[in-house]
């Protein structure tokens, strides 16, 4: 900032004064008064100035070039996958397509949607916990008897979707998006329908392939994929 400022402020020709160690903001002056005449000649001022400019610009360019890389790798945690097991990203979001979770008993289901928790292992930073709630699904049987599962996370901005019994539709409490029983957007800002998940009944239990998706996109983009 200081270097930049003095560079911008200072006339190309005069002013070798700043080099003598005083702080840049006090030293530079655009008036011709402080030409090299007032300062003991300690070298070619023009060259020194050019060197300084080149140095500043060069250093700035180096920093600018490396900063995103450094920031991306140092500031964002969990970049290095653990040698055993999935990286934090994958385990916590369960992006793995094959992970199927038992969320409840088939006997519970009816045409009215039922909110069921998806329970599994969760990695959060340096902790790994079992039996954690990874998310929620709304599950119902449609009139053909097929099991439908919808991720209860709003595709708009990630709030938890509720079900309005009287009105018979899903609603997001944060920004009032409303969804039909099959997940289609009835009103509100949601960019896509509720995310349907693959679900089946097997051995009397409801099994759901649980995935989370990016919000704010019109397509379903699974989380954990960069």
């Amino acid at each position, binding site marked *: *900032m200081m270097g930049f*400022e003095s560079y*911008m*402020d200072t006339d190309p020709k005069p002013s070798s004064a700043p080099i003598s160690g005083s*702080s840049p*903001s*006090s030293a530079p*002056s*655009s*008036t011709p*008064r402080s030409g090299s005449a007032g300062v003991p000649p300690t070298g070619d001022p023009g060259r020194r100035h050019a060197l300084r400019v080149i140095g500043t610009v060069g250093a700035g360019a180096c920093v600018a070039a490396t900063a995103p890389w450094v*920031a*991306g790798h140092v*500031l*964002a*945690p*969990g970049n290095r996958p653990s040698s055993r097991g999935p990286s*934090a*990203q994958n385990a*916590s*979001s369960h992006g793995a397509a094959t992970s199927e979770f038992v969320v*409840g*008993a088939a*006997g*519970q289901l009816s045409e009215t949607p*039922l*909110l069921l*928790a998806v*329970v599994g292992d*969760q990695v*959060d*930073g*340096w*902790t790994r916990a079992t*039996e954690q*709630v*990874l998310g*929620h699904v709304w599950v119902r049987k449609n009139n053909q008897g097929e099991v439908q599962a919808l991720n209860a996370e709003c595709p708009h*901005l*990630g*709030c*938890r979707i*509720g079900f*309005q019994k009287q009105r018979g539709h899903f*609603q997001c*409490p*944060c*920004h009032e998006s409303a969804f039909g029983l099959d997940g289609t957007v009835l009103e*509100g*800002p*949601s*960019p896509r329908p509720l995310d349907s998940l693959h679900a089946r009944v097997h051995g*009397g239990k409801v099994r759901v392939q649980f995935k*989370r998706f*990016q*919000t*704010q*996109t019109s397509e379903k983009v699974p989380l*954990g994929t*960069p």
Partner: protein
Amino acid sequence: MSSDSTNTAPCVAPWLEVQRSAGRLCLWLLGLEALTGMVLGLTYTPSLEHAWSSVYYIQDRMTFGARVRDVHRLTGDALLLACAVYAGLFLCRAGTRKNAAAKPPTGQRPAGQRPTGQRPVGQRFPWRGLVLWWALLGIGALVLGMEISGLRLPWDQTSYWALTVEMNLARALPVVGPFIHRVVAGADTLGQLALTRLYAAHVLILPAMAALLLALAKKLTSQPQAAPGVASHEKSATNQGTALGKTAPFGAETLVVLAFIIGAILWSVNGGAPLGAPADPARTFPARPEWFIRPLYKLRELAPPALELVAVFVIPGLLGAILAMFPLVLRRLPAHSRKWALILGATFVALPATLAWASLKDDAENQDLQVALAEDQQRETRAKELAHLGVPPGGPLVMLARDPMTRGRELYEQSCMGCHMYQGRGERKAPDIDGLMSRGWILDMLKDPTHDRFFGKADLDDDMPSQSKLGEANLIPIRDFLYALGQQDAPKFDRTIVDNPIQTQSAELQESKPIHPEVAFADVVPLFEAKCVSCHEWKDEGDFLGMGAPDLTDYGSMAWLRTQVLDPEHIYGDLNKMPAFQETWNEQDLNVLLQFVYLQRYP
């Protein structure tokens, strides 16, 4: 032209004083934030298990803890406002000054009123003045950042869901979005990393950056610009930011305002720093932003879905850019620039205020929202009751998950409400939960089993007739015996439930201990066998009439309730209408649900 200059000139001195006061107030408020922040930092712990609990501890147990938190929280608001006022005055002055400087220096101006010989300095303004202005804007942005990150630290429902929305919004930004999300949130799921990062930003990174910018601003203002021909007494007036701590830091009027602010905070009845129910990703919550983000919230709502990001990012970004470049714009404006500045400033204030007001009005009229907030309020109250007695190491969510009156009730609402009514909610296709198996319930049920409260709506094939004919003399011993059957395996409830039930306060609960009803009520057993066991099964005998009435073995005990829930046919036989809830809950949830139902016997 000249009339304009005579109008503005007298205004400058008093307005400069006001600006200086505002600047001093900002510094004082910053100091107050630092001080109260240090006090809070002695207790607050940024972890998912301890954040909410430690904030509650500050409010509940620390001397003046709640007040310190109020001051810390509301001073942040005051600081934002003070910064805005300061920036407004700064701009106004910059506008008037440029206006004056842009005049031809040949104007017949009274000496000493506006500096006329100053063109060189005026030309220098774009860099020094603009850098100072940017530094000030940067400080404002950092204050905003500290405010937002600080508000997320208690990790209550509002914190969590607001952060969810904010992080998802940030991620939607092109190019930088995913990076910002990863740096701030740490992972796809908001958890410990997000909290740690917010904490580091709030107490370390943002304050350090603000301190750097303050130092820069101070340097820019305190060093006179070595321009020739400017008399020393004019320097302070020509410098843009003289208000920033240049003169005596103890402005009397500043201290009065400061005292007023602190007084108002301390006098506020409700306190300024609420603590909601602990953050629970499993529970839906109507997240609403703080007052200073409200205008954007409303703007987003007004915008068509496709333009949402434009409303949230582009418009504020443009406004910010305009604000950043405003001194340059002012300089190019004609003589009435001051009026324009005032009009624009008024718009800057009035427009967001209107949007925020409209949004608040919407919320007040939104019934669903009010219901949801009331539910959360109930949870908050309960969480605080329990936390008052100590939070388990697993954190507030573990605490609530073990609480029958919270988790048990929640499970009831998820799975039982469709048939069993409780506190006026739910449908009536089976007996109500209220007071189930309490002494009063048993007696009333014996007298009138087909009342809607009991089995009237259950649509059983064979209804039990009223037993009123037996008379109270017989019914009361039978009731006591039935009640005692349920007491056999009375769980030893957590102390917290006994001390702070939401609705039950019973000495009996505290004394409840396993008993042997057949010993204690030896004299009632023959009566019971004579009057009840002809229809009901009891201990593998009875039901001599073949009525198939429910099994009364250990009636109402935890074991009986468990069977009733998991395998109702075992008790009700062919009469049964209730679905079996096997594999619906894990063992802990099932136990908590049963405890919730069991607690109904202590009205």
